[in-house]
């Protein structure tokens, strides 16, 4: 058994144990975002897909690289975006029912206020 292989195996097993330890603490409420976050993380296979390009010099190589790049990048981008979208919805308290109060500070809020009292540029 080569040193490289031994190192790789050691890393794999330790990472597996770290994974069990860390994931075990994630509450059930977050299991869907967790799965989607790990989804994004296994998109790291994009690195493998890109490295195909280092030796790919014929049609077969290019096709495999192309398909792998599509798969992996869809995995990475989609995984992160959808996880972020989900986590944004988790709130400790229900959102404030009076948006007017909040809208007094902030550019977007001011415009909303302007619209409301009829001095907005759009006039709607």
């Amino acid at each position, binding site marked *: 058994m080569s040193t490289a292989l031994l190192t*790789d195996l050691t890393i794999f097993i330790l990472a597996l144990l770290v994974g069990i330890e860390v994931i075990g603490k*994630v509450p059930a409420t977050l299991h869907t975002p967790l799965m989607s976050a790990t989804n994004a993380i296994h998109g790291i*296979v994009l690195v*493998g897909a890109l*490295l195909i390009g280092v030796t790919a010099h014929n049609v077969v190589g290019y096709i495999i690289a*192309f398909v*792998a790049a599509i798969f992996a990048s869809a*995995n990475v981008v*989609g995984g992160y975006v959808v996880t972020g979208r989900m986590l944004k919805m988790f*709130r400790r308290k229900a959102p404030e029912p009076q948006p007017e109060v909040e809208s007094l500070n902030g550019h977007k809020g001011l415009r909303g206020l302007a619209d409301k009292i009829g001095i907005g540029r759009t006039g709607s």
Partner: protein
Amino acid sequence: MSGFTGYIQLVYVLTAALFVVGLHLMNSPATARRGNQVALTGMVIAVIATFILMIHAGTVTTTGWIVLLTGGLIGSAIGLYAARSVQMTAMPQLVSAFNSVGGGAAALVAIYGYYDAESRGGGVLGTTTVFTVLDVLIGSVTFSGSIIAAGKLQGFIPSQPLIFKGSRLINIGLAVVAVGTGAFLFSTASLPAMLVLVLAALAFGVMMVLPIGGADMPVVISLLNAFTGTAVAMAGFVIGNWALIVAGALVGASGGILTKLMADAMNRSLANIIVGGFGTGDSAVAVAAAADAHVRSIAADDAAIQLAYASKVIIVPGYGLAAAQAQHGVAELASLLEDRGIEVSYAIHPVAGRMPGHMNVLLAEANVPYPLLKEMDEINPEFARTDVALVIGANDVTNPAARRPGNEISGMPILDVDQAKSIIVVKRSMGHGYAGLENELYYDPKTSMYFADAKKAMAELTAAVKTLVG
């Protein structure tokens, strides 16, 4: 390892560390978003390092760059569109789709590695072959299996278990072919054999998921998630990349834990789920006691009175709630009750949705604050001091028959809804749950059945409570 690639490998170690920290931050909803960003940082660093490595190697052809960048852009666009447009009810399909492409990409990395080595005439590459074979095998099974799972969830493949005569024989046959070819590859370098391995593994993935029913999807998705992780780790072994090995191991651990949690929540072994069981037609033995008991039905006004004058209400949502798109209606009713000073919480069974934690996301989307979402072990002791348990679209997970031996769901952990002082069940009809079992809860003298579509029922209840107290 030369100096330069050594430094790049160090960057990959940093990436791996950021992944671990990111996942660690997911242990609380308050820090989870930061966790996702930390992991994303790790990913960006890894991709930049990889580009530097590729430029340094100087062997990537112009065509190669065009192919990779075009592919990357197309994939990113698809991923972005899917992530932005997906409905939260369709999350399981999307996760399945990402499992599929992740597994597919991992398999392609190994397939290319093999093809490249073979075309150089170097023959088999010693120990690398073990991981190559495992990567191709697991990656391909995940790729096709996840497509079938997504199809079942989306509804373009029937969600009931598809079992035909001899399907198990075909499965065994495919497994033998795949493993046999894999073993053959250890001793002989052969591209056609690799192709046979890929095809057999793809077919096996399809055959593995087809016989699994809709209710078992939380387990299947978790399992396929673990598979993808493992495939990516194997790809890491193939190309000697630590970031892939660590990331794959983390995902494998996560998928494995979730698979076990889901299987435990249904009190079924993994083997039992894979082989198929629920709803296959040969198991619909009704509970005898149910036949002579009768059911009490209730109208909106009476249900509203019970709710409005309660001091503690627990809402028990099931997938039927999401199917009827009633999440927002429930949240509205709940906040109305809370405004009256009633203590409202939600009891979430681990398999309430179509994937682990699915129901929590659906309720979070409906603006339900996450501290109100209680896990089974946390909420079960509270039912005894609850005035009204409002069950919406949940069935088997509330059936007290699970506490007795000798039926389909015996031993399955359930929500102790029957301990509440009174129970209102919102349900369209007296139909059975996935286990094909009569729910004894419905015949409990404390239970009133409110027969209506969940969305309509929530609107009616909210209106009735408003007239009552307004």
